[in-house]
């Protein structure tokens, strides 16, 4: 492992080459990374490039600490609100879109997670030329997160499986292009992306959207404090970079990912203060459900039991039916109150980091921007991409796969990917051979099994879906624009209105994350006030912030 010295506001920090800036700063105890309009500090939250809260200034430009890899000495500062723009070298000539080269891959897959990789492999096996874009520096997505430095440890089974999938794609001749930030989809079939400080314009013959999911935001008093992050962000620190979010960690949320990450952080040397699970403890009535899970996916089931056993052995209490009621900054970290979601006594813990994992939102921004039809899922409050059984959306030539269409987990996405990728190639006239046909049939069986498992899993983990229940009037709902619950309530009290007008009344959703966290909260609040439950924010480009100079340049070689 080689080291690089980075400077953070005058302090020298020994970073590992290849880790994220976020990982290096976290290991050095730096938690506050950007200051907001109100002067508040923010740190890593989503850990996957969505929330824009971990912005730092590197050599004069804004960068997401979680997505920026340490590959050379860097001069890093906190990103301050309303910082002057970085000086630009030479003036760049204005240009029109006609002057921008168009890349025309036969099949374009966006997202190199389990669904995208499986789709790419299937389409390639059918004979199509396939290009896969991914925003991260390494393929694998959130489930198969790979070790940034292979020398830093032995990959576990999940990482090894991801490695095999990536290797298979490469061996088949799939072109994997990491570090590409797709920021726009334009009907009928144009994708715009930033890559190597330039503009990439792509018009594939067939498009497979495999953009996955991101963690839901549940506004809890104190959830914007540095040190409070999603469970997935903490997992990335450990799985990719072998760093822990702190010495003492509390994990709260709903679902097995929280237990998994608790075990991983234990392995990394952290102390887990508690795991607060909002679902009730499994009881005698859940035997049938457990049996169904064991039957549908014995390996996953066994894994779940192993997590429980490991936590028990480490003396970590899993507190069922409880949530984080509030988080406050303390002299040496954070104090966290755990308790029943509605009332009663709370227990206080003193920790360095809090991980929140209350489920996921599908990342359907691109599919929506391209005009693919979506339906409202009242149970989860999310949009579901309308697809046929081959994964084709309502727009000709565009398929979607995995969690970005509807939540179902990584293994379901992988099975789905095989079906969808092969179908996308078939629409371009490619034939499947007997082996691929067998694998598609197997993928259909696997998908059905995974869906049975997921259905049983969420029966076991059933809990009220938290939206605004834990927020106090002063709790921030829109992290970017710092809009509080009291401000949203006041806007709703002025009378019913479409969600776009509530956005304009409050500014909620007008920030750099494009309303990904507050949008679902506004929907819930509007529904509670008797408004239109199905309406979401209109999709607006860019789905990720876009540096103007990048539009004027071609990607550097």
């Amino acid at each position, binding site marked *: 492992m080689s080291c690089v010295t980075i400077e953070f506001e005058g302090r020298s920090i020994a970073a590992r080459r290849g880790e994220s800036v976020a990982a290096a700063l976290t290991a050095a105890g730096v938690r506050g990374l950007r200051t907001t*309009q109100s002067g508040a500090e923010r740190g890593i939250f989503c850990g996957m490039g969505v929330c824009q809260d971990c912005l730092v200034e590197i050599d*004069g*430009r*804004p960068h997401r600490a979680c997505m920026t890899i340490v590959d050379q000495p860097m001069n890093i500062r906190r990103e301050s*609100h*309303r*910082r*002057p*723009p*970085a*000086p*630009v070298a030479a*003036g*760049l*000539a*204005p*240009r*029109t*879109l006609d002057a*921008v080269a168009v890349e025309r891959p036969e099949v374009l897959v966006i997202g190199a997670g389990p669904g995208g990789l499986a789709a790419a492999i299937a389409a390639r096996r059918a004979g199509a030329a396939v290009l896969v874009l991914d925003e991260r520096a390494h393929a694998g997505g959130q489930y198969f997160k790979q070790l940034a430095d292979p020398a830093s440890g032995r990959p576990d089974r999940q990482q090894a499986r991801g490695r095999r999938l990536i290797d298979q794609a490469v061996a088949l001749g799939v072109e994997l292009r990491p570090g590409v930030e797709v920021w*726009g989809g*334009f*009907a009928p079939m*144009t994708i*715009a992306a930033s890559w190597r400080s330039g*503009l990439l*314009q792509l018009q594939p013959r067939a498009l497979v959207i495999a953009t996955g999911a991101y963690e839901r935001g549940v506004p809890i008093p104190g959830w914007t404090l540095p040190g409070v992050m999603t469970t997935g962000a903490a997992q990335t620190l450990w799985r990719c970079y072998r760093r822990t979010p702190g010495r003492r960690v509390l994990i709260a949320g709903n679902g097995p990912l929280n237990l998994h990450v608790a075990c991983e952080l234990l392995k990394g040397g952290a102390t887990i203060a508690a795991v607060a699970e909002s679902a009730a403890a499994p009881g005698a009535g859940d035997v049938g459900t457990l049996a169904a899970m064991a039957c549908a996916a014995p390996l996953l089931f066994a894994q779940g039991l192993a997590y429980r056993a490991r936590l028990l052995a480490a003396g970590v209490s899993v507190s069922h039916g409880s949530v984080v009621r509030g988080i406050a900054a303390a002299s040496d970290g954070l104090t966290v109150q755990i308790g029943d979601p509605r009332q009663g006594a709370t227990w206080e813990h003193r920790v360095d980091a809090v991980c929140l994992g209350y489920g996921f939102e599908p990342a359907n921004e691109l599919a929506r921007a391209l*005009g693919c039809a979506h339906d409202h899922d009242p149970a989860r409050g999310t949009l579901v991409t309308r697809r046929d059984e081959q994964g084709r959306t309502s727009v000709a030539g565009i398929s979607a796969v995995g969690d970005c269409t509807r939540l179902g987990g990584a293994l379901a996405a992988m099975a789905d990917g095989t079906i969808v990728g092969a179908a996308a190639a078939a629409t371009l006239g490619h034939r499947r051979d007997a082996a691929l046909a067998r694998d598609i049939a197997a993928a259909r069986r696997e998908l059905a099994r995974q869906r049975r498992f997921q259905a049983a899993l969420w029966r076991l983990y059933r809990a009220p879906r938290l939206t605004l229940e834990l927020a106090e009037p002063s709790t921030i709902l829109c992290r970017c624009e710092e809009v509080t619950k009291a401000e949203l309530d006041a806007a709703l009290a*002025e*009378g*019913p*209105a*479409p969600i*776009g*007008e509530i956005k*304009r*009344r409050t*500014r909620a959703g*007008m*920030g*750099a994350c*494009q309303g990904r966290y507050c949008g679902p909260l506004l929907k819930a609040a509007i529904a509670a006030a008797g408004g*239109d439950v199905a309406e979401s924010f*209109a999709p*607006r*480009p*860019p789905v990720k*912030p*876009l*540096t*103007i*100079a990048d*539009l*004027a340049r071609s990607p550097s070689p």
Partner: protein
Amino acid sequence: VSEAAHPAVPAIGTLVIGGGIVGLTLAGFLAAEGVEVAMIDDGRVGGTTANAGSLHVQMQSRFMRLYPDLVPGLESTLHLYPKAVAFWRAFEQELGADFDLRITGGLMVGESREQLDFLAMKCRRERELGLESEMLDRARLDAIAPGFGPAILGAELCADEGKLNPLLANQAIRRWATTNGVVRLAGESVAGLARRDRVLVARTARGTIAAERVVLAAGAGSRALAADLGAVVPAEPEPLHMNITEATAPLLHHLVQHAERPITLKQLGTGQVVIGGGWPAHLAGDERWPTVELASIVGNATLAQHIVPSLGGLRIIRCWAGINTTVDGRAVLGPCRAAPGLNIAIPGDAGYTLGPLCARLVADAMLGRRPAVDLAPYSPDRFN
């Protein structure tokens, strides 16, 4: 569409159709005088108050190039613009609100001899028509507005131009209108208008609304509704592209435009820079969603950093489309003889700048007062 009476507003004295800046202020002015008024707005396509917040005074070169045949109409309307900006200022004071309104002056820059000659000619003409304009060479430009790129040779400065934050203004005006007693039907649209006996009837999804008077303040959407009553209002939608950046340090004081290329640049009090100026968007699908185009993002934003290079280091966080309405270069204001009970309130180009003033003029005419500006040149009767 339901044929039953609307459950909330079965009948009303005056129905204002359209809840953009024109409809909102007009309903508020009428209600302030005790008129029973309801305002209906779809809230999605038209009247989305998706404004950019420029306060235009000088003739927009974009408009002059695109519609040269409309320049005489434009010139005859020019005197309304400084009045409209003064009206905005007074309106902000009257409401005791903060619109983030600043009359900073507006610069129209040129980067060739020909462009500067065009600006000088335009400047002379505007001065003849009573505007406060002057030409600046590069040295004088730099003295008041540093930061322009090396290609810019000079500019026309129009002192009366400026900008406001439409989010602040629209919210304050909406609250004022509600306080005045305007009944707002938000998220509902009018499918058609008909005459029944002595009243006009608006058909909506929730039922019919009978009104003694109807005001069409629905921009280009007014055309089809006027036609339902046999009146001609040749308003056309012009969906336009806008970009907004992250907040940055003070960078641009003035409203900035270009002599030949479509662009407006301005920085709001939030520190965000709004980049727009007439790049096309379109209305997509059956729902006619205002939808942005990649070509406009690229063309508009790269032009912006060409004019002010430091913009190149900023990030765009959102693009959207708003809808301008064009008619014949002139506003369409007042009662429509062809359809008794029907009034029109369409400012024509630069609808946000002209909106509150136009609304005041139409409201005064409807209240039986003499409007501060003679409405004869703007009468809908010129098409009927």
